[in-house]
């Protein structure tokens, strides 16, 4: 069992971001998380990445309870979990090779990490990770010179290079064109499949979620609306999931993925 959430609740300021979440994910599963903006998809992924601590309930990841571990043991567990951020948190004045290699800092330890700043430790490894995403030629470019979509792929390359056992992705393709988005998700899924990695990704584009992921979870108002095999996700369920009382004429659910602005790093 890779992920086991039991009755998890999360409060962010005054907002109840997640409420009573029960979720089990087996090792090697590929799961998509969909839902309207502000439903709690990012909160759920950050919770799985141990970036947020739940206010109630228990979290178990890769057989360990991260919030009952010591700080050091938690950092060790975190090296086995990788989160692809929606807006890649990359310093604009860093070279792509350094950014990608930073994925393994947790495993390298401080001294080897600092030595790698003087001379990149594993250039072939970084190049290989970028090559799977079609960015090998940007190895020595600066992050600030890349476009939003390229930057997002550098962020993905870093997490692939980290080689986590639990791979989490928060809107990993939101800044890419449809063809590139499809190809990148394909790459992620292939990577996960080849290595038996568990993949959990949140997506705005419903058709991408249904095309690439065998299991789909719908989140709305901080609760799980449904948890079904992709084939059983009907248009009626999607309409109910995305229904928005605040907008006068709601668009057909899943027709247009909402454009998300990715700030340059």
């Amino acid at each position, binding site marked *: 069992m890779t992920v086991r959430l039991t009755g998890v609740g999360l409060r962010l300021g005054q907002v109840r971001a997640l409420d009573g979440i029960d979720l089990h994910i087996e090792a090697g599963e590929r799961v998509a998380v969909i839902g309207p903006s502000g439903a709690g998809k990012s909160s759920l992924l950050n919770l799985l990445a141990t*970036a*947020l601590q739940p206010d109630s309930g228990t979290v178990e990841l890769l057989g360990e309870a991260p919030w009952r571990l010591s700080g050091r043991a938690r950092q060790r567990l975190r*090296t086995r979990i*990788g989160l692809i*951020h929606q807006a890649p*948190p990359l310093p604009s004045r860093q070279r792509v090779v*350094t950014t990608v290699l930073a994925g393994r800092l947790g495993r390298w330890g401080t001294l080897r990490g600092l030595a790698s*700043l003087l001379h990149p430790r594993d250039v072939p490894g970084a190049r290989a990770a970028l090559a799977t995403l079609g960015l090998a030629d940007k190895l020595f470019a600066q992050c600030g010179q890349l476009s939003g979509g390229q930057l997002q792929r550098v962020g993905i390359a870093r997490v692939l290079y980290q080689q986590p056992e639990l791979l989490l992705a928060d809107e990993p393709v939101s800044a890419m064109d449809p063809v590139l988005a499809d190809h990148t998700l394909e790459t992620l899924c292939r990577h996960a499949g080849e290595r038996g990695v568990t993949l959990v990704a949140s997506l705005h584009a419903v058709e991408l979620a249904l095309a690439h992921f065998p299991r789909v979870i719908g989140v709305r108002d901080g609760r799980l609306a449904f948890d079904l095999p992709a084939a059983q996700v009907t248009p009626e369920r999607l309409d109910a999931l995305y229904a928005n009382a605040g907008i006068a004429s709601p668009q057909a659910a899943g027709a247009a993925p909402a454009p998300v602005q990715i700030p340059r790093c």
Partner: protein
Amino acid sequence: MLSRDTRDPAFLPRLLLGLLAVLVLWPGIRLAELDPRVLFQADSRQAMGGFLAGFWPPAHGAEFLELLLDATLQTLAVATAGMALALLLAVPMSLLASRALSLSAASRSGRPSTLGLVLRWPVRALLVFLRSVPEIVWALLFVRAVGLGPTAGVLAIAITYSGMLGKVYAEIFESVGQRPAHALMQAGAGRLSAFFYGILPSAAGELVSYTVYRWECAVRASVVMGFVGAGGLGQQIDLSMRMFAGAEVASMLLTFLLLVWLADQLSRLLRGRLA
């Protein structure tokens, strides 16, 4: 006038804060006994005029220039050695004092834990202590301890400036975007790795600029400390002023201008490379 549609909720607080600032500053001016009219009274003008008239032409005898070069080099050496010692203290203390390296903040959406805040407090207090005593006081103390000469100046600068550098470095680390470092710590990286990979790239320009500016200040401070016997240009200026040798003072002030200008150029060059 302010209808519901155009009302800005921040307007009233800003207005009140502005008025408060004026109210606080007014007694300050009275307390400082600031009265610009004194400057323009006849005898003040005459005294200053007589002193300034001796400034032209600046002294440029070969012997004096040699003396000036020696004193300038000594001043630069005092400032640089003082800064180097200050950095040795300031860098570790800034890392300890800064919330940017808080591991707990990475999993609490940016808020460090109470324990972390409490543990950082003594380092902050030490930094406050180091910079609260002016360098001239340290210099007077050290002149008594190690005798007349540049050593007192170096020690005084090292102590005061480590406090200033440590505080400002810690704040620069906090002021750049924290997400890169937090993301690294969430992926299992240690604090120091997260600092070098996540914070330093964004903070480097600011750090260099502030360090060069402080070095420039250290040059000026070492001159002031020369007045109390810590060597260098300051001691020369003190001697020349006592002898009413305005021309020599003028030469030394021109040297200063040159030093500050050089520091400015250096800062610009380094910032251009880093930002």
